[in-house]
């Protein structure tokens, strides 16, 4: 097992642990922190795939900005065990049942998928993720969706202003 593989398994385990902890944490602030751990692990995966730009932007945008806003809101909401609505036991039961079904569904599909085994991701190969190549592709082949994405943000901005303004 090379370094890359060890790193891969470590990051994968970390991401899964983080994701599970997000769900089982009683305190929403702890959940957010575990989610940040997940983002770090995923950024690590991006780096393994040689997509450095994506990795670092994932950190800047998600870990650095969005999760701070999450924390911000959660802190202002003053959540604690008393204010949390109690879900009935049936609710929990059906939640677990549907989630478990979906999981078994996926696992059975992935296991039964024959040609999945020769479709492993190629680590440390490919240079599309490098910032220079990414920029070139974004501004040539994918320029229209890129512009549409900017319009998407315009829409989100106008929407936020409309909903948020006081008058």
């Amino acid at each position, binding site marked *: 097992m090379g370094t890359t593989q060890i790193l891969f398994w470590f990051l994968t385990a970390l991401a899964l642990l983080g994701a599970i902890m997000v769900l089982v944490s009683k*305190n929403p*602030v*702890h959940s957010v*922190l575990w989610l*940040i751990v997940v983002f770090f692990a995923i950024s690590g995966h991006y780096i393994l795939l040689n997509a*450095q*730009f994506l990795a*670092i*932007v994932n*950190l*800047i945008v998600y*870990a*650095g*900005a969005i999760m*701070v*806003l999450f*924390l*911000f809101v959660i*802190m*202002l909401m003053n959540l604690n065990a008393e204010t949390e609505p109690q879900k009935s036991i049936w609710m929990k039961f059906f939640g677990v049942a549907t989630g478990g079904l979906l999981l078994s569904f996926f696992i059975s599909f992935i296991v039964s998928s024959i040609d999945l085994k020769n479709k492993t991701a190629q680590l440390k190969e490919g240079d599309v993720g*490098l*910032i220079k190549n990414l920029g070139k592709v974004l501004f040539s082949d994918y320029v229209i969706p890129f512009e549409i994405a900017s319009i998407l943000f315009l829409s989100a901005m106008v929407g936020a202003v409309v909903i948020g303004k006081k008058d």
Partner: protein
Amino acid sequence: MQHVWIVLGVLFVLLNVAAGLIWVERRMLAMWQDRLGPNRAGPLGLLIVLADTLKLFFKEDWIPSFADKKIFVIAPAIVVASVLMSFVVIPFAPGIVVADLNIGVLFFLAMSSLGVYSIVLGGWASNNKYSLLGAMRGASQMIAYEVFMGLSLMGVVMMTGSFRLTDIVEAQRSVWFCFTQPLGLILFFIAGIAETHRLPFDIPESESELIAGFHSEYSGMKFGMFFIGEYLGVTLISAMTVTMFFGGWMGPEFLPGWAWFFIKTFAFILFFILLRASLPRPRYDQLMESGWKVLLPLVLVNILVTGAVLLYLKG
């Protein structure tokens, strides 16, 4: 093996600089405020550094019973860790850089954006209303200023065509970017002050209204971590300013590169302290308004003009 020495050397120098700044700041503030400052312990009062550190170590390390303990302990570590990580990409001299990443600028931005967690989590975990207020202010301030901190560096990146910091330094061989990107420099520095929450932008702590804000409840070495983190942040922003705008290690031949780097960085650290001595603190809403309504548009204008000029020069 050389690599390990570089890492250890950088770490050693940085921690000493940060500690030394305790003395520098107090002496300088005293000088500008027309008093003496610490002058008893050792020559010129230099041993105050040691005394202060020892004091921090031996103070009772108290965790409030009402605090969220795990987060309370983690918070001060985050600030030091994130700032130290940022130094990884900074080239101190030709060949003396821990990791010369090709996304260096972005790495710096990512790490500095993580620093906000120490404030937010520290303030929240303290379970104290003043701390929480400080944390809230810190979060919104740092998010607002982070946005154009990144954008203010894009002018330099566009002119260099690279995110690698050594490339950026090399690109300044003929002319420093402080002459071609003056607006970028000013905006980056303002954002840098806000990111390190130093006076005049120390709104998260503002001792006169929030009794030290997010670190009210901290004591002992945990408080020391915040303290060190702040000085490291000041050093980091100074070093980044030098790297991005003042030619990094470049300078006349009679001194080696690292010496020029340290001289320039030190000048900016002094400038930070001078700012603290001379400027009042703005109100919170003023800070946010100037950030979003004045500085952000200016940054965008800067990028636009830079891009247009670059295209024009290219033909």
